[in-house]
Every structure is written in structure tokens, then in C-alpha cells.
């Protein structure tokens, strides 16, 4: 696809869209948009080599779970384009970021804005926690920690087939608490999976609050490097830093980019909710109105009508 917009503008569009949805629906995974907007904008707009979407711009309704008799079953990966040996493949690991993923698909023109009206509606495939059939998804990641292992399996298979395309995982730092992530790193390093790379949204938040208060996991840069992967830490709101990190030599090793981010980037007023940022639901009409007015100003838009 030819980039019609720059990634910074897409990131702003993602924040605006998720914010609008949050105000209108009295809640959303809002802080995730703040922390990951640049990463997702950059992935879809620049970093990944993807074909055009092969699924309808307005998502189809839920058509049943996978089963050998469900012939019409499709995953949501078609929004990322076809699978083909030359294309990159994106595994979207933190399924709780689904709303941000949907907003990204809309901003990059892979999905229609109407899709968000289907969000979390019965019978819709635009689910609140990204399912395998949800736009942009290829697997269930609501259980955290399985994304990197799956991507490692895909990458191993693609190496066997000499495919040119790479396998990328978008991750979050909270899931690094899961032991499976470290198992996946072991195997990816042991098998020299340099066709595998990940960008981790290090926003230091998890459901119960700040990771430092829930279960601090220490120096993850040091840990991942000591596992033998190529790990780089960058400012996760700096798209230039992402471009450089992606170009780092990681022959024989998977590349893990730690994108250090703020969970209220672009919406400073959200800090009033710290440390409970995982899901923002307004405690009162006053709070909703205040947040609407304050954050709209920051995002350069008029307050949302709801």
C-alpha cells in the first residue's frame, strides 16, 4: 500500500477515535490508545509489508467458531492483507488493545469507520477483547503470553519454507509476567529466528495498577538481552526511533523493541485516573464532562456530542 498519510497523523487519528468512542460509550480501553498509537500507526503505515485488506470494509457478523464443518470460517487477519510468502504477518498479542487495533485499521483505510458502531454488540465480530475472527486478529490472545510462542512457530515454519516475509508481534509489557514469554524467547534464540521481531508497548500498567506496585519485573532490557535476543529500548512515541530500531542488525536473533510509553500520552488529563488505567469508565457525569472538555482540547477537537 502507498502511504497517503504520515504515521504521526495516523497516531493522532487513533487517539481521537478511541477517545470519541470512550466518551460516547461511557468507557473504553483508553490509556492503551495513548501508549500504543504511534507503534500501531507505524506498524501499519510503514514497518510491515502487507497487502491490501481482503475482507469487507464493514466487518461481517459473527459466523460461528472454527469447526471442521464451518467452511465459511475466517480469521480477522484478512484485514492485514493476504498471507503470502513475501508478506509480513502481524500477531496482535494483547487482545485488550482491540479497540485501538480497530481504530488503527480505520485510520489506515483497511476498515470502515462504521465498524466501531459494532464494537461489543451482540452478534458482531468486532469484539471487546479481540477474538480470532475480530478485524486485524489472527488468533485469540485474550489469554496473555501466547502471542510470541505462536509467532515463533510461524517464523520457524516460514524459515523452513524460505519465505521472505517476517513475522511481527505487537506485545505489551504486562504479559512479560507470564512464564510462557520466556519459554518463547528461549526457543526463538535457540533456533536463531531472525525473521521474528516484536515491539512491546512498555506502558508499565496492568489491570490492578502500575506494574511497579503489582509485580515489578525489573530490568526487562537486561533480561531479554541476557536471554540472547537483540533487545533495544526506545521512546515509544518517537517514530524515528522506531525506524532506526527496526534497522538494527539482528542476524541470527529475534529482535525485541521495547517502546517506553506513557499511558496518558496526548491525554494528560487521564493522569487523574492513575493508577487504575486499564479500563476507563467514568465515575460520574461530572467526570465524563470534565474529561470530555479537557481531553478534547488536548486532542485539538471540539468536545464530543453524546
Amino acid at each position, binding site marked *: 500500500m502507498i502511504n497517503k498519510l504520515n504515521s504521526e497523523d495516523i497516531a493522532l487519528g487513533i487517539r481521537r477515535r478511541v477517545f470519541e468512542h470512550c466518551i460516547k460509550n461511557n468507557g473504553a480501553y483508553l490509556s492503551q490508545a495513548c501508549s500504543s498509537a504511534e507503534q500501531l500507526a507505524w506498524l501499519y503505515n510503514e514497518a510491515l509489508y502487507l497487502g491490501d485488506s481482503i475482507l469487507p470494509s464493514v466487518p461481517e457478523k459473527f459466523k460461528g*467458531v472454527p*469447526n471442521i464443518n464451518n467452511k465459511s470460517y475466517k480469521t480477522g487477519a484478512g484485514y492485514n492483507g493476504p498471507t503470502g510468502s513475501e508478506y509480513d504477518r502481524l500477531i496482535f498479542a494483547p487482545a485488550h488493545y482491540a479497540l485501538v487495533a480497530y481504530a488503527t485499521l480505520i485510520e489506515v483505510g483497511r476498515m470502515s469507520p462504521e465498524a466501531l458502531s459494532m464494537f461489543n454488540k451482540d452478534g458482531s465480530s468486532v469484539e471487546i477483547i479481540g477474538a480470532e475472527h475480530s478485524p486485524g486478529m489472527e488468533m485469540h490472545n485474550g489469554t496473555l503470553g501466547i502471542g510470541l510462542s*505462536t509467532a*515463533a*512457530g*510461524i517464523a520457524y515454519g516460514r524459515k523452513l519454507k524460505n519465505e521472505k516475509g517476517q513475522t511481527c508481534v505487537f506485545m505489551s509489557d504486562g504479559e512479560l509476567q507470564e512464564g*510462557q514469554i520466556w519459554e*518463547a524467547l528461549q*526457543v526463538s534464540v535457540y533456533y536463531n529466528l531472525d525473521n521474528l521481531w516484536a515491539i512491546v508497548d512498555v506502558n508499565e500498567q496492568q489491570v490492578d495498577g502500575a506494574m511497579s506496585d503489582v509485580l515489578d519485573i525489573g530490568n526487562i532490557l537486561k533480561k531479554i538481552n541476557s536471554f540472547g535476543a537483540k533487545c533495544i529500548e526506545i521512546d515509544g512515541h518517537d517514530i524515528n526511533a522506531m525506524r532506526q530500531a527496526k534497522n538494527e542488525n539482528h542476524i541470527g536473533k529475534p529482535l525485541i523493541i521495547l517502546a517506553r510509553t506513557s499511558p496518558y500520552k496526548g491525554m494528560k488529563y487521564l493522569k487523574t485516573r492513575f493508577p487504575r488505567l486499564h479500563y476507563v469508565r467514568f465515575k460520574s457525569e461530572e467526570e465524563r464532562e470534565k474529561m470530555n472538555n479537557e481531553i478534547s482540547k488536548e486532542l485539538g477537537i471540539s468536545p464530543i456530542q453524546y
Partner: protein
Amino acid sequence: MIEVVNKPYSYSFKSYASKNKNILCLSGDLTSSCEVDIFRDEYPKQFISMGMAEQNMMSFAGGLAMSGFIPFIHTFGVFAYRRPYDQLLASIAYPCRKVRIMGFLPGITTPAGMTHQAIEDISIFRTIPNMTVIETGDASEVESICEEVDKIEGPVYCRILRGSVPRLFNTPLKIGDIRILNRGNDIMLVTTGICTEEALRARAAIASAGISILHVHIHTLKPFKEKKIIDLISNVKFGVITMENHLVNGGLGTIISEIISKHGLSKKLIKLGLNDTFAHGGSKQYLAKYYGFDAYALINSIEDFIGQKLNINDKDLETARIENVHSLSKAEAL
């Protein structure tokens, strides 16, 4: 004498997998324990050592399937579901991926105790949507299972016998079929896995005592073709005995009880197997006796059904074993 086959999985997997480069052999640090070491040495490109990391192994296998390969996971049955259950569901079962899970050391076939004995695996796997569940009971079934499961597009869990495995049947395993080993009309005996061989030890002695047994061997536990068994259950005089190397709840005994209740068949059912208990470390013969699912337990159950003693002793069972294997184990598929 009974023919005992040495490591049937070893050569049958090699013969099958070497013909298709898309088949990948995964091992969770149990390569020789699961008899795929010769395959690893001869076909290293199709072998992936996954180490002791089962959670990763399950999701990794899902990823391999997503890039067009057919992974065969080799580990002990227990390690295929206890620790990595979440990954088993999310990465293999839900997406209905063509992944084959070869679970070794079913039930009490290991002296290694609770941590190694898969005693609830069938009850767990058969409740997982999309999953096919097969248990091998002799060398011919172990030899034919890889080719046979190839037909199944979704995930499969197989209980595999290793080491010295008796050959009881002379036809390959056919998914969904049942094997009628003996026709009779007093009591129906339904057995799976190693319990079929154990039941064969007692059958001639039981016949000499004048009891006519309808003996059926089951290998496909899910999907269970109940139509094939309803009439058989209906036509026996006293009732049904199930015998399984597993907890009596959730496995074969439960499957048969579900069929009996669903179709309103008024037949009594005695379920032999581990009865709401874990086992401990010991030999197969000792454990089957201790936990009440050996040939003696079978004879006791028959005595309960008919209300009289059969007076069968050790000597009768030894005799029965030698005679049975050649004369009565001819497989018959419905």
C-alpha cells in the same frame, strides 16, 4: 503364544512421517522416551526439540500449523494438558488446527507415580470442542494410528503404548469403528487400551464357567459412534461392564453410561478403573490389581451380575491368556 512387538510407534511414525515433509516431529525433552529418537537421527530437518517448555510447545505448534505444517507433539500424556491447558485450548483446540498430540504413558503404564500418570486425560480431552480422542490398545493400533489420524482435519489426542506391545488384532485401527472380539448374550464387556489384553486373560475361563460374554474393544473415544453400540447393549441379559486404564468418571465408563441414559436402555453398568483416586508408583500388574481393574476385578464384577461364584483361579487365567490371543482376538469392524 502372544506376539509381542518391540516399539511399534518408533518405526510406524518414521515410515509415515518420512513420506511427507510437512509433518514435523516435536518433542518436549522426551525423544527416546516417546520412541522418536531414530526418526530424529535420520530426519533431523523434520524434528524440532522443544525442551521442557510445554506451554510454548503448544502455542509454537499452533504457529507451525498456521504456516502450513502438521506438527506431531510427543510427550507424556500428563504434560500435554495439565500444565499447558490454556495453550492447548487457545492455540490448538479452538482454532481447530491440524496438530496431533501423542500422549505416552497412559494411566498406570508408568511406575513414576502421580506426576507421570495420565489418569484423567480422556475425561479432559473429550470435553474439549473440536478434539478427536483415540486410545491404542495393541501393536496393530499403534502401527496404524499416524496414517489413520491423517484424515482428521482438526486436532487429535492419542494415547500411545510404547515398548513391548502385544499384537491382539490383525487389522488396522479405523477411526469410529469398534472391534467385536467375542459374541455373547449374558454380559457385555467394553474395554479400551491395555484393559483389552487384561480382559482377554479372563475370557476363556469365564466362558468355561458357562458365561457368554459380548466383548467389544473401543479405540475411538471421541467422536463416539453410539449407533454402533446401542443394539449391542440392549441385547445382553445382565448388563454392561466397562474396563479402562483411567478414572471411571469421565472416560469410557461415563461414555457408556451417557449412551445408556440417553437411549433409555434399562441396563446395569459396572465401571472398572480408578475410582475417584490417584494412583501411586508401581508396576502395571500391581496397580491394576490394587485399584481393582485387573482380570480378577472383572471376574468379581461378573459374579456380582449373575449372583454366584465362578471359582476361577490364577491357573485358569494363565491358560486363558495363551489360548485367547490366537483364537478369539480376530478383529471385526462394524
